[in-house]
């Protein structure tokens, strides 16, 4: 699987000279499986650039030609995870097929949440039905694995805000990528179910919004510190960890310090865990 980062920021896009290296777009990751399937993890503003990349090839059977299929997994529906959706180009090409999975009481409720963003007071397209592509919307319950485009996908609900955020484990061709984007653990850290989901992941992409100091300042925001990300990866025996979902006020230099802090913690634990810092436009092969 090839995992590419299109948006790595939390809460709200943070344009400006201070965020050019890691990037200022909100959460969006693509997973290209060895079988060639497309999975999109969250639809923050990074989805605009992902859409442009997916539409670059105009041959028959592609997204530009209206002949392709993809799945979109939404960890939750806070703005920074869905606000790129109306600007995701492949959704506007008739013939493309999208399967959207997310956390909600029912599929109708999830559709209502996504329709809410398209409503005429907010966006000129007015409804998903005007977008063009065929869109299937499925409320996904945590627990039992589901087959999605040739991948085995399992979800666990982590604490975050009022409705929680899903972490996804995607398994294909003997490899596992885990995405835990927003994770507001309690004092005791990840739940047993979450740790089981992360266990042995070839790549764990984990919420690392804050320094421990800022985490303590904003306990109600339901977001993890870099220390919690490292602890989760070590406890779960992950092979690689990608820090992700940086605070909107952190400059590139601030993120460098998060990375340095994680590096020291991993060295201190004498762990072979490989460390990445998610940056827009970079790809990790798994």
């Amino acid at each position, binding site marked *: 699987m090839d995992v590419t980062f299109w948006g790595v*920021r939390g*809460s*709200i*896009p*943070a*344009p*400006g*000279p201070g*965020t*050019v290296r890691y*990037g*200022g*777009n909100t959460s969006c990751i693509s997973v290209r499986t060895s079988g060639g399937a497309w999975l999109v993890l969250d639809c923050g*503003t990074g989805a*605009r650039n992902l859409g442009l990349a997916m539409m670059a090839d105009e041959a028959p059977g592609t997204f530009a030609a209206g002949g392709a299929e993809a799945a979109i997994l939404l960890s*939750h*529906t*806070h*703005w920074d995870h*869905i*606000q*790129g959706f*109306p*600007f995701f180009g492949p959704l506007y090409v008739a013939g493309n097929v999208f399967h959207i999975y997310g956390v*909600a009481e029912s599929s109708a409720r999830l559709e209502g*949440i996504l329709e*809410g*963003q398209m409503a*005429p*007071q*907010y*966006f*000129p*397209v*007015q*409804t998903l039905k*005007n977008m063009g592509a065929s869109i299937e919307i499925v409320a996904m319950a945590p627990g039992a694995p589901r087959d999605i485009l040739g991948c085995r996908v399992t979800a666990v609900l982590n604490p975050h*805000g*009022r*409705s929680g955020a899903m972490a996804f484990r995607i398994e294909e061709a003997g490899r596992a990528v885990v995405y835990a984007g927003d994770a507001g653990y309690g004092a005791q850290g990840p739940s047993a179910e979450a740790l089981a989901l992360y266990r042995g992941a070839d790549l764990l992409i984990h919420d690392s919004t804050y320094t421990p100091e800022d985490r303590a300042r904003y306990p109600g*925001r*339901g977001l993890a510190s870099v220390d919690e990300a490292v602890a989760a990866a070590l406890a779960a025996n992950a092979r690689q960890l990608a820090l992700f979902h940086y605070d*909107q006020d952190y400059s590139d230099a601030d993120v460098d310090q998060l990375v340095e802090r994680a590096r020291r913690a991993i060295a201190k634990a004498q762990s072979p865990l490989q460390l990445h810092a998610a940056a*827009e436009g970079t790809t990790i092969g798994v």
Partner: protein
Amino acid sequence: MKVKFWGVRGSLPVPGPRTERYGGNTSCVEVRSAAGTRIIIDAGTGVRRLGKDLMHEEFERGEGTAHVLISHTHWDHIQGLPFFAPLYQKGNHLYVYARRRDDVHLRAVFASQTDDPYFAVPIEETKADISFRELADSARFEIGDVDVQCTRLNHPYVATAYRLSVDGASVAYVSDTAPFSDILFENQFIARPPMAIRPLPEADRAKLRAMRDGVVRLCEGADLVIYDTMFTPEDYDRFPHYGHSRPGDALDVCREAGARRLVLFHHAPERSDAEVDEILEATRVTARQARLALQLDAAYEGMDITLGADSRPARGQAD
């Protein structure tokens, strides 16, 4: 009067190296009178930085008042508001103004934005006092010492242009709008460009003429006009049904209105800094050829313009 730009982009924020100079935040302009009346036009992502900046002043003490004029409630004009720090300080007052809609009350538009499961803090739970004021198309009213005039624009689901006059100077904010020639935008979704061969019904043409006259009147003799020039002529030919103007449309309005200065605004998300430079240069050439005595710039984040009398010391010294 001071005018400062905090977000100059249209559609959605575009961080990255291509937009470093002009900026990637969506629409937000701050206007402050010499006496200290504070008006914010649109609350795109640029309003987040403005809010942080304000928290060094009376807003930090919970003694601040700001008036937010919303041109229309498309995302790129409201998406920063939940991140406006003064909202979370008890004692601050925020007045939000926008055109009255037929379907949804203004409060509901903003309440849904912060509702579960879209955002963590519902607007009812923010600590500042927020009031909503719905406006008629041609409303005229006062905010402190500032005279505010409105006129209707040609944009999907309708937008409002504002003229603010104080300290012997005027600024007009005209965004978002299509030209007033090919399509009349109201509440419908227009999926594709209309056929060129089908002429507009006379009733539509009359409405567009009246709308354009309103915009020219609003800009009459303005010291500064801020205008939606998101499209190049090529963009407009392809997407006339999206509701945005070209620099040439802004020049025509400014010439007829006798405006002194024009700032190109609401840059397209795909536009790189170099491309904005080129558009500005080409527009300057056009203005020179038309012998227009018009100072012409492209808006960038942090751009600061002083108009008319302004005796207020620089920010930070007075407060």
